[in-house]
């Protein structure tokens, strides 16, 4: 079975074009970051991208518009907003979920809302190398579609090596969860992508995709294609 490739983009005016290029290069799913001023789970690349997006006026309403326009360009691709609790708190938790769905969102990820909190908010859950078996089972039961395996104890951002914690985490999670497992955080090269997909069912590429996207849609498509070629 072919492995899933999820690409993260920060919401902005050119997101529809970039998302289209990513899918052209072989992405199956696109995460769209709704920027937050204080993104605790993010390293410097995504944090800076969020700062720039906010400076360009990308607030919740604008992000939902970007989502809707991306949905028009890509009718068949799962599009998943990724953000932080503060935006939902301000917008209204239920209203946010409704408007994401109405704008074509396929689920969502809330980086600072761990499993067990607000279970009625359907979302992709995350587990980490520090998660206990009990928490992995909980996240697996609550997750929407696939489960996000955070490969490292750390924030988002490219790393030199694939995390040595991944094999153990995959092995533990397989025993407890039926959903597909996608590994993310720190995956930035074809070598990482290949190694990670030997274990997991898919990968999520964030900071490295953002860096490629800075050089435009073609550069992003080529980068995504270089990952797709090996998984």
């Amino acid at each position: 079975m072919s492995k899933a490739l999820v690409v993260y983009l920060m919401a902005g005016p050119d997101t529809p074009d970039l998302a289209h290029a990513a899918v052209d290069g072989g992405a199956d799913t696109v995460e769209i970051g709704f920027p937050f001023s204080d993104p605790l789970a993010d390293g410097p690349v995504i944090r800076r991208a969020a700062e720039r997006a906010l400076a360009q006026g990308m607030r919740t309403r604008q992000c939902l518009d970007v989502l809707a326009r991306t949905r028009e360009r890509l009718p068949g691709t799962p599009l998943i907003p990724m953000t932080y609790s503060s935006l939902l708190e301000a917008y209204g938790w239920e209203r946010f979920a409704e408007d994401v769905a109405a704008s074509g969102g396929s689920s969502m990820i809330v980086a600072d809302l761990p499993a067990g909190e607000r279970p009625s908010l359907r979302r992709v859950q995350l587990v980490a190398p520090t998660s206990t078996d009990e928490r992995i089972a909980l996240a697996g039961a609550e997750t929407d579609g696939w489960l996000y395996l955070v490969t490292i104890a750390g924030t988002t951002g490219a790393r030199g090596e694939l995390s040595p914690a991944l094999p153990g985490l995959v092995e533990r999670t397989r025993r407890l969860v039926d959903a597909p497992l996608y590994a993310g955080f720190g995956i930035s090269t074809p070598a990482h992508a290949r190694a990670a997909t030997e274990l997991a069912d898919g990968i999520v590429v964030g900071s490295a995709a953002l860096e490629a996207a800075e050089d435009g849609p073609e550069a992003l498509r080529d980068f995504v294609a270089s990952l797709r070629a090996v998984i």
Partner: protein
Amino acid sequence: MTAATEFGAYGGRYVPETLIPALDDLTSKWSELQRDESFRAELNELLTTYAGRPTPLTRAERFAPDKRLYLKREDLLHTGAHKVNNALGQIVLARRLGKHRIVAETGAGQHGVATATVCARFGLECVVYMGEEDMRRQQPNVERMRLMGATVMPVDFGTKTLKEATSEAIRDWIANVGTTHYLIGSCVGPAPYPEIVRELQRVIGDEAREQILAAEGRLPEAVVACVGGGSNAIGIFYGFLDDEDVRIVGVEAAGAASLGTGRAGVLHGARSSVLADEDGQIADAHSISAGLDYPGVGPEHAYLRDIGRVEYVGATDAEALAAFRDLARTEGIIPALEPSHALARARELEEELILVGLSGRGDKDLAEALRHLT
């Protein structure tokens, strides 16, 4: 455990999954230690022989001639502020959790100094995140931390103050959670931190209650403290919350009034009252006092505001500076700029018998205050 309803609708654990097991460990260790006599004994010994507790109550007769205004003198503690009460408690906790590396954030530098101090005392590695703007404003404290062996990590993005320093400290903790204890400096952050910090600071209020009863034979009519994250305030307030006749007033910096002008929001792991725009993006705070220059506040304060038990008011930079100068001239006590906000409001209250939390001393603020006063 869903901690989301800890203080009414405030509090919770809005953090990445990576930290949840560590917060669970912290919660269970903390509740175990609270029943553990040896923990209390060890901490009390340190508070007495190392930090200098109990601190006195001083009547400020010339500062407020028409009142009976008492200062709870946390400025006399080792390291010069109430922050050491919390740092000592958490360092004992961290050692019992088996952690050998400590990470902290600091604004005014008082919490950073307190953390560097207790790490030096126990031989633990210490990393303190501090915004570049605060490093400039509180240079002497940067030197103190370094002298005691701490690594001070400058934070050069965003506001370059306490908000970003806190985010970076949390990111460090996420990356090193196996070896590291996050020694948070105020009653903010994900559960159980707000409760831990409150319990470690309530010694201020418990002592002050006994002392004012001994001095005056009655309870104060009003208790006043400055509120940044809210730790010195919650500590002194806890001595009097059940005394319905005691008016309790928290004083925020006018440009950082998370409770006065904020809205419900999520910052640094907790739902509380925060300075944010209508989209939930955190706004910049502005205060001359680095320790109050923070757009969030402890969730329990938001709760105490909503139930009407505590009033929260503001004081401007200029009002705080005037009180800073006046206390120095009339009492020979140089307060920190943070409690100068409390002094500014306290002397205007209609009540006669007033207790003010003097949370720290002003040595760290001399350069910044003199720049504005001359």
